[in-house]
Every structure is written in structure tokens, then in C-alpha cells.
């Protein structure tokens, strides 16, 4: 069964450093998402991406964040200058279409720890 994959599974970084989280969505999916879950809190939407453009972003997704589809398979989330509060589990997801009824399939997550 096709699945969303994410690398790395864990990342430790120093405050102020840049990190890039990588995702390979399911191959025939056209919509891509990033969510995050701070320890003990809800899973929160960050951004959705379609046709090489951001289609929606949350208030969390400020200028420190960016997303890119650098090639036909990868989807990345970049945090330019990490802060302590960026420590969280980051989930990538993908769906075939962008309809509200469309199931979003999640990857296993990248645990980011900012020291």
C-alpha cells in the first residue's frame, strides 16, 4: 500500500539554525500538507500546497517557514531560523484532490528538537 514517507525521523538543532524536513507524498496525490503537534497539544495545520503554490496557510506559518517541491517526488518544509517553540512533531500529508471530503494520508512524522 502506498504511503507517505518522511526524513529524518528525528532532528536535533541549535536555536537559530535552519532545518529542512523532507517528505515524499503518495505518487498520484496532488495536494500536500504540513501539520505539527507540539508535545501535549493538538495536531495543528500549517500549510497546504498545490500546483507549486501555497493554497492556504495558518497564522503559525510565518516568514520563517517555507515549502517547496524541488522535484517530482519530494516536498520540503524549511524553517529558516529555528526557535525553541518550534520543537514539535511535524507531519506531512497528501491527498488526491483538495476537496474537503478527500482523505489526507499522513506520514510517520519528524520529531524536531530545538535546543
Amino acid at each position: 500500500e502506498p504511503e507517505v514517507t518522511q526524513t529524518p525521523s528525528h532532528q536535533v538543532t541549535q536555536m537559530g539554525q535552519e532545518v529542512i524536513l523532507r517528505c515524499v507524498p503518495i505518487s498520484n496525490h496532488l495536494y500536500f500538507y504540513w501539520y505539527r503537534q507540539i508535545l501535549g497539544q493538538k495536531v495543528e495545520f500549517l500549510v497546504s500546497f498545490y500546483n507549486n503554490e501555497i493554497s492556504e496557510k495558518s497564522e503559525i506559518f510565518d516568514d520563517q517557514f517555507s515549502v517547496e517541491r524541488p522535484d517530482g517526488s519530494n516536498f520540503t518544509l524549511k524553517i529558516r531560523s529555528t526557535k525553541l517553540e518550534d520543537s514539535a512533531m511535524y507531519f506531512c500529508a497528501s491527498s488526491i484532490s483538495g476537496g474537503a471530503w478527500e482523505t489526507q494520508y499522513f506520514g510517520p512524522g519528524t520529531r524536531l528538537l530545538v535546543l
Partner: protein
Amino acid sequence: DQQVKQNSPSLSVQEGRISILNCDYTNSMFDYFLWYKKYPAEGPTFLISISSIKDKNEDGRFTVFLNKSAKHLSLHIVPSQPGDSAVYFCAASGAAGGATNKLIFGTGTLLAVQP
């Protein structure tokens, strides 16, 4: 943002009995409601969904009930199995007239099925 709430952080049931997980929401504009299951160190896995125009959807051992007037939904698992032990997230999508497909999650309920 308290649009989707799961008021029970945990639930313990005996194997073979019914598990009932509850979820409340405040935004009457949501079009779809979904349940995801999450094991430790894995991403959320889609379980079952329901459109806002329906009041019940069934898939094997899993049934979701929607009460729009009460803004309440529930997930029934019958019979419960030890492998069902996981965190269950309620999520909603499709607010703003379908202009968005971001998922809004509840805080989750940890289900423990005792053998």
C-alpha cells in the same frame, strides 16, 4: 482554537465490549468529520469519515454517528480488540463554504482495550 473538542483524554474498556469515543464541535459550517487513529511514533491513520448531510456511517467494526443539532459526533468500536489501543483524533474539515480543506483536530482520546 477550540472548534473541535474531545473532552475525555482517556478511555479504558474490556476486550469484546463497545468503545464509544466522543467529540464536540462549535463551527456549524464544517462539511466533513473524520476519525484518525494514532499509534506511538507513527502518523495519524485515517479510520472513518462522515459527511455533514448524513447521521451515520459504518465500516466493519467502526461506526460514526453525527448529531448536527447537538454539534456532536461519536465513534463506536464493536467489538473492541487490544489492537485498537491507540490515540483517537476527531477532525473536521470544509468550513468556510468548502473553501478550505485543512483539518482541525481535537486533542485526542487515548483508548486502552484490556484483554
